[in-house]
């Protein structure tokens, strides 16, 4: 199994490429990064995901060498990088603003880093051509940055940071300026490049879908802390806190008190309502406050009570969000609790089964709801 699945973080013999050890970064008395310890492995596509101002850029700038940790150490290939200035690190960064040199052509922008390495003219030219081909920019080589489109500029920035074949490539919101279609194309391009070059990527984004698409692991950040770092699937299916569950995708959080029942727990969320059962693997005490995280697509919406499900509640449709292929129903159940349920729009809109104010049954399997302590 270890041969087919790329999970170096589960392999105790694997040496991490980057190690953060109790890293804290303060600006004045503001703590931007709060005592973080984590590893990033070679050939990983590591995504930092979080709201604006949570410290993603600061993390990258410490790796690139533009900021020094206030406390703790960062190791690159087992070596403390604190004394190494940015121009001596085998790390390249693609800046959030691209930071292309406006006075240089696309070609010279890409060659800029190579020329610093005292490579021969021919070797530089060959490498630049290679990068231009990779990023499909060959015909724009002679243009200046202001003569090409936003998407092309972004590819120049990518080519420039890739040209030196760094051990580690940092991408700070590389697709922030792109429209949805171009963004998707670029994401696949990035993954392709990563596969071809074997470079380790750390990518910053505040777009969760982007993180899910490209990353081998996603680190969800909040106020200078990594709350959870795991594969996209585990982040989505097994979030460690309600913050993570809420940040990634759509979710309903139901808060209540747990009481052990069989394999799992029953959660009492409202006086009169029947408890919700979840067979989720967690240790909770009798009566402990807990949260149920329920993904809308795991909730079925029917007119009649389904006979085979333990979790079934009745409610009224308050709102419907039409998303084209799907519709999200906002249903008010007992105790005023809102639950989101998603259904595929298999029929035309005019012949939809349910509409506003309809009384419906929501149901989900025993394993659908994730139980969380915080």
């Amino acid at each position, binding site marked *: 199994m270890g041969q087919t699945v790329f999970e170096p973080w589960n392999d105790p013999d694997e040496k991490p490429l980057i190690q953060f050890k109790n890293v804290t970064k303060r600006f004045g008395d503001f703590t931007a990064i709060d005592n973080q310890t984590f590893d990033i492995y070679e050939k990983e596509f590591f995504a930092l995901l979080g709201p604006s101002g949570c410290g993603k850029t600061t993390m990258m700038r410490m790796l*690139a*060498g*533009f900021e020094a940790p206030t406390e703790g150490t960062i190791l690159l290939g087992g070596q403390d990088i604190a004394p190494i*200035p*940015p*121009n*001596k690190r085998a*790390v*390249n*960064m693609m*800046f959030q*603003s691209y*930071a*292309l*040199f*406006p*006075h240089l052509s696309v070609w010279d922008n890409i060659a*800029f*880093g190579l020329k*610093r*390495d005292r490579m021969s003219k021919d070797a530089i030219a060959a490498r630049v051509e290679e990068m231009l081909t990779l990023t499909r920019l060959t015909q724009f080589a002679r243009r200046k940055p*202001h003569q090409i489109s936003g998407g092309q500029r972004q590819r120049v920035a990518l080519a*420039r*940071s890739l040209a*030196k074949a760094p051990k580690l490539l940092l991408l700070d919101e590389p697709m922030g300026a792109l429209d949805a279609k171009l963004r998707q194309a670029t994401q696949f391009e990035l993954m392709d490049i990563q596969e071809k070059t074997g470079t380790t990527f750390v990518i910053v984004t505040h777009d969760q879908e982007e993180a899910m698409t490209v990353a081998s692991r996603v680190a969800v950040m909040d106020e200078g802390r990594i709350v959870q770092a795991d594969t996209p699937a585990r982040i989505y299916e097994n979030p460690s806190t309600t913050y993570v569950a809420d940040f990634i995708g759509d979710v309903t959080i139901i808060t209540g008190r747990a009481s052990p029942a069989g394999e799992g727990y029953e959660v009492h969320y409202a006086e009169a309502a029947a408890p919700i059962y979840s067979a989720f693997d967690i240790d909770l005490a009798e009566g402990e406050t807990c949260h149920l995280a329920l993904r809308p697509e795991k909730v079925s919406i029917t007119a009649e009570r389904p006979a085979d499900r333990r979790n079934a509640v009745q409610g009224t449709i308050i709102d419907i969000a039409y998303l084209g292929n799907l519709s999200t129903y906002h249903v008010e159940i007992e105790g005023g609790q809102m639950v989101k349920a998603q259904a595929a729009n298999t029929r035309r809109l005019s012949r939809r089964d349910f509409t506003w104010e309809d009384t419906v049954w929501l149901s989900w399997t025993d394993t659908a709801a994730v139980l969380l302590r915080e």
Partner: protein
Amino acid sequence: MRRFALIALPYAWLLALFLVPFGIVLKISLSDIALAIPPYTPTLDLSEGWAGFKDFLAALDFENFTFLTTDDLYWKAYLSSLQIAALATFITLIVGYPIAYGMANAPDHWRPTLMMLVILPFWTSFLIRVYSWMGILSTEGYLNQLLLWAGLISEPLVILNTPTAVYIGIVYTYLPFMILPIYSTLERMDGSLLEAAEDLGCSRLTAFWLVTVPLSKNGIVAGCFLVFIPTIGEFVIPSLLGGSRTLMIGKVLWEEFFNNRDWPVASAVAVVLLLILIIPIILFQRNEQKSREAEG
């Protein structure tokens, strides 16, 4: 109509303040010297009608311009003015660039103050400031007193009435014209460009040469022209600080007008000076145009 008014206004301005005076000077330069008031001939007398105008035109010639080529004083003065202006511009650049750089990299809340300090000298009379340099640079001046007191020299230095004093005066006077355009390009520069350069393997110094300097090129070129152009015709600084040894065309012009009262030759000198200045002025305009296009 509105459009016409908008365009007409600057042209009227140009006509009144530049072309008319230039036409008058050009006319005088084609006249002959005379012991009269005004001290040249012919003067246009419209009472004699068309014939009078024809006589007037016939009396004009290029004699004065030919004269400029016969006496080597003139071309030497032009050449020396160009040399002094070029070297002074270069020194101003060397002094001004670090100041502009420092201003652009100063903390935000300091910048208005620094800007004030650069502009402040303009609030006092130019003449007074040049005179005060005489007080500083003369053999009994403050500079010599200070150096003597500090024991750095035993004999007072002769600076006043030498070319050095002229350079000091020019650099001092025109420094703001160098600093301001360079500052404005440096201030607009995106700081992440330098980080990108470092990230790609540049040291701080190479990043400065490869990124900062090229990106401030427009400011450098603008500043150099703003210093170079007025310096060529400079008259006050060389005559107050330079003594008799400094040869500049502005001084020659003044002497022709007021010592020799030879208005026609003086006008010819001025016309040639203007022709010499047109080249750098056009180059300056093209640089401005190009930098506007690059931004737009």
